[in-house]
């Protein structure tokens, strides 16, 4: 029997990112319109494994997923031991644009979840013309802190265990166990302080409430998909963004904060009609 490889190619990309040399891990599958996917805080590109393996998506889209620096198989930059990782909206926007340019993508569709679902609002605000369409998963303009993030990075608490513990309830109770625990594994494996560093963007730096009304979700189509069980980016938060930008929003039943990872088939059922619309636009 021949080896059962998935139709995904994983490679390391060497590039200058945010003015420093980086070695980034990038996976892709499919052909057609580039679909650049952004993972959640403290996780990595494995969250999109369902999409990368679904021919209904990859027949028409080239799905590309990179691990952000510090995440997954992408290393932190040289000298990381002497700095504290803190993601900012400025760096995150630059990262996406620089990676898209390094990959020579021509007007990709960008889709991000959670922090990725937030940063796509910045892209919609400042760089909409560079994208064919923008998809926000679990998007809200702002999320106020509701626990002390210092618990996520300290010597006397296991960072991976507490990170998984914090996010476990964001997975819908109806998610299949295999996908629930795969999703949590990515958090269990996360590097020390990385989830906390991402949350600096999510809860402090990345508050885009004052710019939402300046986004036109029709010129470059903006689609929003949010799981009903997400109490971090709530349905209300998403619907408010939709109302103010003209984006098309859908609240997904039986899904939480990690739709593409916690129940890929259910999520793809919601995504396909949007991909179809984008393709036919």
């Amino acid at each position: 029997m021949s080896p059962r490889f998935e139709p995904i190619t994983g490679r390391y990309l060497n590039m200058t990112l945010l003015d420093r040399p980086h070695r980034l891990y990038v996976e892709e599958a499919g052909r057609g319109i580039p679909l650049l996917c952004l993972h959640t805080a403290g996780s990595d590109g494995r969250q999109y494994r369902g999409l990368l393996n679904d021919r209904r998506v990859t027949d028409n889209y080239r799905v590309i997923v990179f691990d952000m620096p510090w995440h997954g198989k992408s290393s932190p930059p040289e000298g990381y031991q002497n700095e504290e990782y803190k993601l900012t909206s400025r760096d995150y926007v630059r990262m996406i644009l620089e990676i898209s340019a390094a990959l020579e993508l021509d007007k990709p569709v960008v889709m991000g979840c959670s922090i990725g679902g937030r940063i796509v609002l910045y892209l919609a605000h400042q760089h909409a013309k560079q994208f064919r369409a923008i998809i926000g998963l679990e998007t809200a303009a702002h999320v106020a802190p509701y626990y002390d993030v210092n618990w996520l990075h300290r010597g006397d608490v296991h960072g991976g265990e507490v990170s998984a513990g914090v996010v476990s309830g964001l997975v819908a109770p109806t998610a299949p166990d295999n996908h629930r625990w795969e999703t949590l594994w990515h958090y269990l494996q996360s590097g020390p302080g990385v989830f906390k560093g991402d949350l600096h963007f999510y809860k402090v730096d990345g508050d885009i409430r004052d710019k939402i009304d300046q986004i036109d979700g029709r010129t470059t189509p903006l689609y929003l998909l949010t799981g009903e069980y997400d109490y971090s980016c709530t349905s209300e938060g998403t619907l408010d963004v939709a109302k103010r930008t003209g984006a098309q929003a859908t609240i997904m039943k039986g899904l939480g904060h990690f739709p593409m990872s916690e129940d890929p088939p259910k999520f793809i059922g919601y995504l396909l009609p949007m991909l179809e619309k984008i393709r036919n636009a």
Partner: protein
Amino acid sequence: MAGTSPAMTWVRTKAMIEHIPELVNSDENLVRRGRFLSTTFLMEIGDQGYLVKIIEGRIVSITPGPFVTPNYSFALRAPKDEWEMFWKKVPEPGHNDIFALFKRGKLVIEGDLHPFMANLLYIKDVLAAPRKEAKGERSDAVNGAKR
């Protein structure tokens, strides 16, 4: 809980709480996950307090109040109806996790949070243990529910 008196629901809630030790202690994997935790915490369901004593991941007692000088590491306090919603077999959005309850301002946690945060996955499963025996699906049941 249409057709059920408040007294009846209390009887049921108390029975669920009293059954937590058996549900936790019979779950080998859960006990293994909590094996480095020995502590006592206070769980308040409305005005009714319970001291939950854990030794090496096993629940050795759940003692109802009132208490004289109770001694515990951390306390979790929420109204009774919030706990009842939380303990549904398939809870509604907003009721499925204690962090969802925090965020909505319905659950207060205070005290020494170290044992709580350091054993968060374990504690969450201990608190959710009554769901294992709960009956009924969501009113707008989601297809494909599987736990």
